[in-house]
């Protein structure tokens, strides 16, 4: 008998169908990886098992846990089940914990809800659970508050909470999406260990094929509320049947066809750049402290080159980007484009600035929702005053065409576009002044793999057509590998290693680079090619 058995589950919310005939099985001590693009219904499937569905949701079909039906239970029975028999770990560790309670209290609460034991005893068991989640009490006392922990540590607290009572089933909904690769690797290892030790069943939801390929025993692939394919990991990946699954795999390993066209002339020269942020005063009358975010970074980017910059969250990548763009003052060093400094005194030089553009990570936040696309795309023309309207419109139309949209899209509002389309518009906006350099700060990180693959193709194509240079910033090593000629690895404000992409990836020299590469989840060699 399976631990979790979902049969013909259908779900609708306020009458809108969300899931259609979903069937999944999970045995004790096994890991089921559920993958699929955003909105495919992965989370809703998990929430149905927990019976934590939004208002207006109606589920039909059969869900059994250890042979016991779930859907027909009363709310009180579900309360008794949740936390004891089913634990759940959520995507966003930063907000998943109550900021006002200590981690000890929060872990102990799981125990106290289900067992009538004294608080002291519960605390002792909470400490044990935290220790199993690799937060030993001597380094992370129970009296810590969530804000005193990093994202990865918080995720461990959430995991400790979920496994405190050794539930039969653990559901993890994208538990590592918000974390760094290295942290992600640790958390994934932790989860795998716990499953093997306790004989739990783990339902692991993710959108990253590589993650499940590494750890799952079985895989289910979802699309638009349906399970399109399911089976044991190895066999399934070897022999994908459904076109969607194949496309997914292809996209995950996609590398755009590129013809390196780097010339020798340097375009961007960054020399010994330092950036300090003021931090709040330590004492009431003390001098404000400062945080050294970028520590003497130097590099050159040649015309036509695509240069990668990788490093974990908070290492200073975006800070460097903003400095190059002239948005923030640097405290020491020089930044030159075509030999001209970005800063003339304290003011950025508009001439230089016009030659650079940027594409940001969040396709939803990079546009003013109140303006039409035409106006949004034309915004960089602000630096070229007195441009006739007609010329402007032609330029917008051209830019939109270049990124695969139509000139007619200029009259629409941004909310009428999907995430991938928005990122195209962002690129169109970056292209419109015909810059020489485009900085891409995590420009594809928020996109689904398939969309991402198409955007990468577009970038490669544009680079070839317009002779563009890219500074490509990402924490995703596989993407950087696919699109860059050279790569730099950044750690805590410093560049620790730089070199041709393939060389660095094949033969990393710096220990940190090695660590990063080891942590990155990888699809088994030979797949999808």
């Amino acid at each position, binding site marked *: 008998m399976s631990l979790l058995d979902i049969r013909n589950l259908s779900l609708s919310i306020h009458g809108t169908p969300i899931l259609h005939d979903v069937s999944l099985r999970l045995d004790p001590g096994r890991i089921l990886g559920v993958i699929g693009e955003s909105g495919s219904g992965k989370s809703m499937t998990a929430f149905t098992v927990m019976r934590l569905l939004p208002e207006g949701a109606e589920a039909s079909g059969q869900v059994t846990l250890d042979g016991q039906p779930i859907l027909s239970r009363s709310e009180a029975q579900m309360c008794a089940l949740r936390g004891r028999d089913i634990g759940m770990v959520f995507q966003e560790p930063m*907000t998943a914990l109550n900021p*006002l309670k200590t981690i000890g209290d929060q872990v102990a609460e799981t125990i106290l809800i289900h067992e009538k034991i004294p608080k002291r005893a519960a605390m002792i068991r909470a400490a044990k659970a935290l220790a199993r989640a690799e937060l030993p009490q001597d380094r992370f006392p129970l009296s810590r508050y969530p804000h005193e922990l990093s994202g990865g540590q918080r995720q461990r607290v959430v995991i400790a909470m979920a496994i405190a009572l050794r539930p039969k089933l653990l559901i993890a909904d994208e538990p590592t999406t918000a974390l760094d690769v290295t942290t992600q690797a640790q958390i994934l290892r932790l989860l795998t260990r716990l499953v093997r030790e306790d004989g739990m069943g783990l339902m692991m939801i993710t959108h990253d094929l590589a993650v499940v390929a590494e750890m799952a025993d079985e895989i289910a692939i979802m699309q638009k509320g349906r399970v399109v394919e399911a089976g044991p990991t190895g066999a399934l990946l070897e022999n994908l049947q459904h076109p969607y699954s194949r496309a997914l795999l292809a996209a995950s390993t996609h590398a755009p066809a590129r013809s390196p066209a780097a010339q020798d002339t340097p375009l961007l020269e960054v020399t010994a750049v330092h950036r300090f942020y003021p931090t709040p005063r330590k004492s009431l009358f003390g001098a404000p402290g400062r945080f050294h975010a970028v520590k003497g970074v130097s590099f050159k980017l040649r015309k036509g080159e695509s240069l990668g910059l990788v490093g974990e969250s908070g290492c200073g990548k975006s800070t460097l980007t903003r400095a190059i763009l002239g948005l923030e003052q640097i405290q020491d060093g020089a930044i030159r484009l075509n030999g001209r400094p970005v800063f003339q005194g304290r003011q950025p030089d508009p001439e230089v600035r016009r030659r650079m553009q940027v594409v940001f990570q969040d396709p939803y936040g990079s546009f003013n929702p109140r303006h039409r696309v035409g106006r949004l795309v034309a915004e960089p023309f602000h630096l070229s005053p007195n441009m006739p309207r007609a010329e402007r419109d032609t330029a917008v139309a051209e830019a939109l065409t270049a990124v695969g949209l139509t000139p007619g899209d200029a009259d629409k509002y941004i909310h009428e576009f999907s995430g991938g389309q928005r990122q195209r518009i962002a690129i169109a906006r970056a292209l419109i002044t015909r810059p020489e350099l485009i900085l891409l700060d995590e420009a594809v990180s928020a996109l689904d793999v398939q969309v991402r693959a198409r955007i990468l193709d577009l970038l490669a194509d544009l680079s070839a057509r317009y002779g563009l240079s890219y500074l490509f910033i990402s924490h995703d090593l596989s993407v950087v590998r696919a699109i860059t000629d050279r790569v730099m690895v950044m750690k805590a404000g410093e560049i620790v290693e730089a070199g041709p992409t393939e060389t660095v990836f094949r033969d990393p020299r710096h220990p940190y680079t090695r660590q990063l590469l080891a942590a990155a989840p990888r699809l088994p060699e030979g797949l999808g090619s």
Partner: protein
Amino acid sequence: MTRYILTRLLSLVLSLVAASVAIFLVIEILPGDPAAIMLGVNAQPDTLAALRAEMGLDQPMVIRYLAWVGGMLHGDFGTSYTYHTPVAKLIGDRLAVSLPLALFSLLLTVVIAFPVGIWAAARRGSAADTLIMGITQLGVAIPNFWFAMLMVVLFAINLRWFSAGGFAGWDKGLLPALKSLTLPAVALALPQASILARVMRSALLDTLSEDFVRTARAKGLSRAKALRRHALRNALIPVLTIIGMQFSFLLAGGIIIENVFYLPGLGRLIFQSISARDLITVESVVMLLVFAVILVNFLVELAYALVDPRLRSGR
């Protein structure tokens, strides 16, 4: 925590200084000569000059400001131009009415608003919720002096359960004193309770939609328990802010209600003092009220820190 308190204290002092200067300047430009008012219609010029000298009105402005502030620091608020008594005593007497009234109505406010707000939030979207929210909408919209008038007609004139106004005095015993504050406190509390109940409800709904409440539910807490154990404390910050503002409002804002019930409170004192150009009293009462507001804000911020460990650690 200490640093947090020290920073707050410093800003408290700075605010007080700024406020005292502002008050003093405003008072300076008020037209009307207090000496002339004291002496009435038939005063002779020499009498007037004598009185002005006696009251120190002939001193330059800066000196008078410093004297005023310096005096206040020693608890000496000067002598009222019209009452000829120390302003400190005057304020003390009035505070003995206004402060209990403010606290009483604040208590009513909280006692009504908390259960109502929580109850409505727990039943969001139900008919009961809609009804309660409708009633609070009415409560917010009703002019409190009108409500007070209606209550006087009903409870004092027709039913004669309460006296129509006036203050029995604390020496007459606790119950008679509280009884004479009841109608005014209710009149003051009704709109405030409505506001607070609405804030409570929406703050709760906000926190109920946070991820950590979902986490709590996943641990096996029922909806009601998750609300009580996790959402409530998190919802307290906006609620505390409002309570702080309400206390300040109740302390000074009773001015109209004090008139309706002819209570000898601070509001009426200031009203009378402004009309009589008893400037020293006006300054001191306004300063006191501002001080109360700033102090309450300070306390509210300390309360935030008690509620929220993130603030305690100083960032």
